[in-house]
């Protein structure tokens, strides 16, 4: 009779919609009969099969009614419902919410601050419109096997680049160094930092002129002032056209006022710009260098903007032999002139000894990595807590499903919960960042603000929040929602034995990071302390320096000294070419008996006056100090111990040393005086008597008097001799402390991050411990009934966590050792990595863990078992 295709029936049976299967099969059978009669069996079979195919799901599904949920985040009322329930959940579990939101917010704040810091570092100097084309003219060479780099250039360099290589450059700028100068207008006098620059510098630096023009610098007796200086000198009146003085001797006319350079530029200290030509005409030694085309005097800076079609590499290649051409005798150091693009000035300002680029970029990387890790720690907490709690919520899932929740609704529910937490954390982290920024800026020496208007900032923040929310919510959302209501509610449901393993791995990661950071911080600080406590070979206390920057001071030096000593506030006073904390002059051309003719010598050279030794308190190993009793001391020389070793001579006192063929006689050898970096070995240095080569006045205060009183008296004397200048002094011990500023900054930031990291990690542990204790309440009850003591329960609960922390410590130790070892290699004078640092860090982490976990486990252990066992 009728036999429609079996396979079609089977298809319909399997893939048809269960709700309509019965009637559809009936209808089709009826129709098959009808079709066989009207169009024949073959066509009927064909139509039958075709209809079946078209009726299979999903081709013909019964759509769900509009009354019920749209699949995902559909209707606003449902979203409102999800959020309401999520909020109620958060309020109900206050500790959990606090840990989650607080921990995450903290991690996000740290990441945000670090992000802002990195952004600031990377956007350094981008203020200048010609950022991509500006470069410093530099040179490198190899001396005694070490590659050195210098940004010092001879005076004729600018002229040479401007004329011989005119096609390659748009601008070539000669520049003095940014130094203190005295600016005066009428009675107002200020010490301000500024530069002398070639006339087209304002164009190259695209100065934003507030009044006057960039062309103002073309007049050789002009000056351009920054807005802040103009304000200080002239207040609200218009400065343009006013006559003023630089260093009490140069008359200049203000021809323009420019907007202050932003803080994150190389030129932020350049508060005024005066014409290079003025500098040349006022300083005879500069004029001599420029007029006589002295290629051997490397005392200036040359900046350049390359032509639009040129590249830094190509131009560097063209100019590389300039120095060799003009100083052929320097061939042995293989000097090479090159351009360093502005984009490298800030982050790649240093070189290691083999000449590889180095500099702040490594801190950018370091902090970037720390930021990512701290954020990771916070996210791990968040994920750990949400998965831990989600097991507890299995029952909730069962009930929700039993009363009719669809899976998609549960997914939405869990996701909206985690997204809500992240959203709260994000808002909180912005508030926290706002509060912390002032302190952060101080520690990091920056002026950073939140980038309210920067789309990248918001994109990163919101993108990260979404990502965290989705990842953290994915476990409960996707896994828990798949539970079958019957199983969960019947109580046969068990979370697998291995469900807690990912969580444990994450805890280990957290502690690895935390312990590494702690070890790192301790070693950074040890290194700073180590260098700080290094003997310096002179007495820093009560030692101040004053710049000897006016002709008046030079002319009346002896009278000034007599008057100062008479005040009683000063124990001794002298001048020198550099303060005791600086060694910025080196020379070669020394010769002594027994010197290998191939030995390429180089000495630090300091000019001092008779009383220098008594002022700074240097200590003699051999011989004596310079003395006025011996007129021949004018060609005397004092060596430091390193210099004696460097020269390889025994009993140097009385021996003759020639410097550029001028004979000197060694009168004494001092203990090494640390004038350079406290992390480097002391440089071989010679001290000679020279009253004309003085740049600073050194004053030893009478420590029996109050410093402020002494300073007031000294100031009065200076006012008398140097009426045109403000009295600016520097304490040597403060200057010395500045040498550690970079390291201390890094150390402080790193320690803050380390503390935060361990805090966030223990916050997570606290949450996990409370969860575990809660989960095992019944077990603890049973154990107690059977006779377990509080100590037993405590050790049972703490054991697992201690184990995880120990693993973390085990992983952290070699990692920390590796990184810190290579960090310490940077310093010649470095601390040891003692084993106790690692031990202390491990014990510290362990103590924090025990403290955190103990609270919860003791709480759990003290619960009366009657309570925990009574329910159900």
């Amino acid at each position: 009779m009728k036999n429609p295709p079996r396979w079609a029936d089977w298809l319909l049976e399997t893939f048809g919609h269960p709700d309509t299967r019965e009637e559809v099969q009936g209808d089709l059978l009826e129709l098959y009969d009808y079709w066989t009669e009207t169009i024949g069996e073959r066509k009927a079979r064909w139509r039958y099969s075709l209809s079946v195919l078209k009726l299979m799901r999903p081709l013909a599904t019964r759509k769900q009614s509009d009354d019920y949920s749209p699949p995902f985040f559909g209707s606003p009322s449902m979203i409102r419902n999800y959020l309401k329930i999520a909020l109620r959940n958060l309020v109900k579990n206050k500790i959990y919410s606090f840990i989650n939101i607080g921990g995450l917010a903290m991690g996000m704040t740290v990441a945000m601050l670090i992000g802002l810091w990195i952004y600031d570092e990377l956007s350094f100097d981008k203020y200048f419109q010609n950022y991509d084309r500006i470069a410093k003219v530099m040179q490198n060479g190899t001396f005694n096997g070490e590659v050195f780099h210098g940004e010092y250039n001879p005076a004729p360099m600018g002229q040479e680049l401007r004329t011989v290589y005119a096609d390659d450059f748009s601008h070539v700028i000669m520049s003095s160094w940014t130094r203190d100068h005295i600016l005066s207008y009428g009675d107002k006098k200020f010490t301000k930092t500024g530069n002398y620059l070639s006339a087209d510098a304002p164009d190259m630096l695209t100065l934003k002129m507030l009044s006057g023009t960039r062309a103002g610098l073309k007049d050789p007796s002009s000056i351009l002032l920054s807005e802040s200086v103009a304000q200080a000198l002239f207040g609200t009146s218009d400065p343009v056209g006013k006559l003023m003085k630089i260093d009490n001797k140069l008359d200049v006319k203000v021809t323009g006022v420019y907007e202050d350079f932003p803080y994150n530029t190389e030129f932020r200290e350049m508060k005024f710009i005066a014409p290079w030509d003025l500098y040349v005409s006022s300083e005879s030694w500069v004029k001599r260098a420029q007029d006589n085309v002295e290629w051997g005097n490397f005392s200036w800076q040359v900046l350049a903007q390359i032509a639009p079609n040129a590249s830094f590499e190509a131009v560097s290649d063209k100019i590389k032999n300039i120095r060799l051409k003009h100083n052929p005798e320097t061939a042995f150091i293989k000097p090479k002139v090159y351009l360093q693009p502005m984009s490298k000035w800030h982050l790649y300002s240093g070189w290691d000894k083999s000449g590889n680029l180095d500099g702040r970029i490594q801190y950018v990387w370091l902090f970037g990595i720390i930021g990512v890790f701290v954020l990771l720690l916070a996210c791990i907490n968040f994920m750990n807590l949400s998965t831990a709690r989600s097991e507890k919520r299995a029952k909730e899932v069962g009930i929700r499903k039993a009363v009719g929740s669809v899976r998609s609704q549960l997914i939405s529910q869990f996701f909206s919960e985690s997204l809500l937490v992240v959203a709260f954390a994000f808002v909180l982290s912005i508030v926290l960042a706002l509060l912390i920024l002032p302190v952060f800026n101080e520690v990091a020496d920056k002026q950073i603000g939140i980038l309210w208007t920067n789309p990248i900032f918001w994109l990163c923040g919101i993108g990260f929040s979404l990502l965290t929310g989705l990842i953290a919510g994915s476990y409960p959302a996707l896994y828990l929602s798949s539970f079958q209501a019957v199983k969960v509610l019947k109580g046969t449901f068990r979370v697998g034995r291995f469900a807690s393993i990912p969580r444990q791995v994450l805890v280990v990661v957290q502690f690895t990071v935390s312990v590494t950071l702690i070890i790192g911080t301790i070693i950074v600080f040890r290194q700073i302390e180590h260098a700080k406590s290094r003997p310096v070979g002179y007495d820093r206390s009560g030692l101040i320096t004053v710049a000897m920057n006016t002709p008046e001071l030079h002319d009346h030096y002896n009278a000034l000294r007599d008057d100062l000593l008479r005040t009683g506030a000063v124990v001794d006073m002298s001048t020198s070419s550099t303060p005791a904390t600086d060694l910025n002059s080196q020379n070669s051309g020394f010769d002594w008996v027994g010197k290998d003719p191939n030995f390429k010598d180089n000495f630090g050279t300091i000019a001092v006056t008779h009383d220098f030794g008594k002022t700074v308190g240097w200590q003699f190993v051999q011989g004596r100090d310079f003395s006025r009793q011996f007129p021949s001391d004018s060609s005397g020389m004092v060596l430091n111990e390193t210099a004696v070793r460097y020269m390889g001579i025994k009993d140097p006192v009385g021996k003759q040393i020639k410097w550029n063929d001028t004979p000197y006689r060694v009168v004494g050898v001092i203990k090494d005086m640390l004038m350079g970096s406290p992390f480097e070995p002391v440089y071989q240095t010679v001290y000679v008597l020279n009253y004309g080569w003085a740049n600073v006045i050194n004053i030893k205060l009478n420590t029996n008097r109050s410093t402020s009183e002494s300073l007031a008296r000294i100031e009065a004397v200076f006012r008398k001799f140097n009426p045109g200048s403000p009295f600016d002094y520097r304490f040597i011990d403060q200057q010395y402390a500045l040498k550690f500023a970079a390291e201390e900054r890094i150390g402080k930031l790193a320690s803050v991050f380390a503390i935060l990291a361990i805090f966030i990690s223990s916050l997570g542990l606290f949450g996990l411990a409370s969860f575990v204790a809660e989960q095992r309440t019944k077990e603890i009850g049973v154990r107690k009934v059977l006779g377990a003591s509080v100590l037993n329960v405590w050790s049972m609960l703490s054991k697992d966590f201690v184990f995880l922390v120990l693993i973390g410590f085990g992983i952290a130790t070699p990692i920390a050792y590796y990184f810190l070892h290579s960090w310490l290699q940077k310093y010649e004078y470095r601390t040891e990595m003692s084993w106790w640092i690692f031990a202390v860090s491990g014990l510290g982490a362990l103590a924090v863990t025990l403290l955190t976990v103990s609270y919860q486990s003791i709480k759990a252990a003290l619960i009366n078992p009657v309570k925990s066992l009574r329910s159900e």
Partner: protein
Amino acid sequence: MKRAFLGEFEEVVLLTVAILDESAYGVTVTQEIEQKTGRAVGFSTVHTTLQRLEEKGFLSSRMGGATAERGGRRKRFFMVTAAGRKALSEVKQIREQLWDSLPPQTLQLMGG
């Protein structure tokens, strides 16, 4: 409630159900449409349309009438609901309004 639109084929099916009155189910609707309009319609199309109309609330259904030729399976009978009747009369009204507003000369050109 938002206005539910009635597609052309939906209108045909809805009308057919109304015509068949008490005896409208998958088979009869398919056959009726084939005979009345002369167009060969697939059963699956009719089936899904009937379901869609039910979802839209224009039809209601009940199960019943198992016969031997169906292998003992029941039929799903469809009835036009009040909303369905309203939708039909609305469609008719709109059609009539449109025809009425047709200018006479156009009607002539069309051969009316």
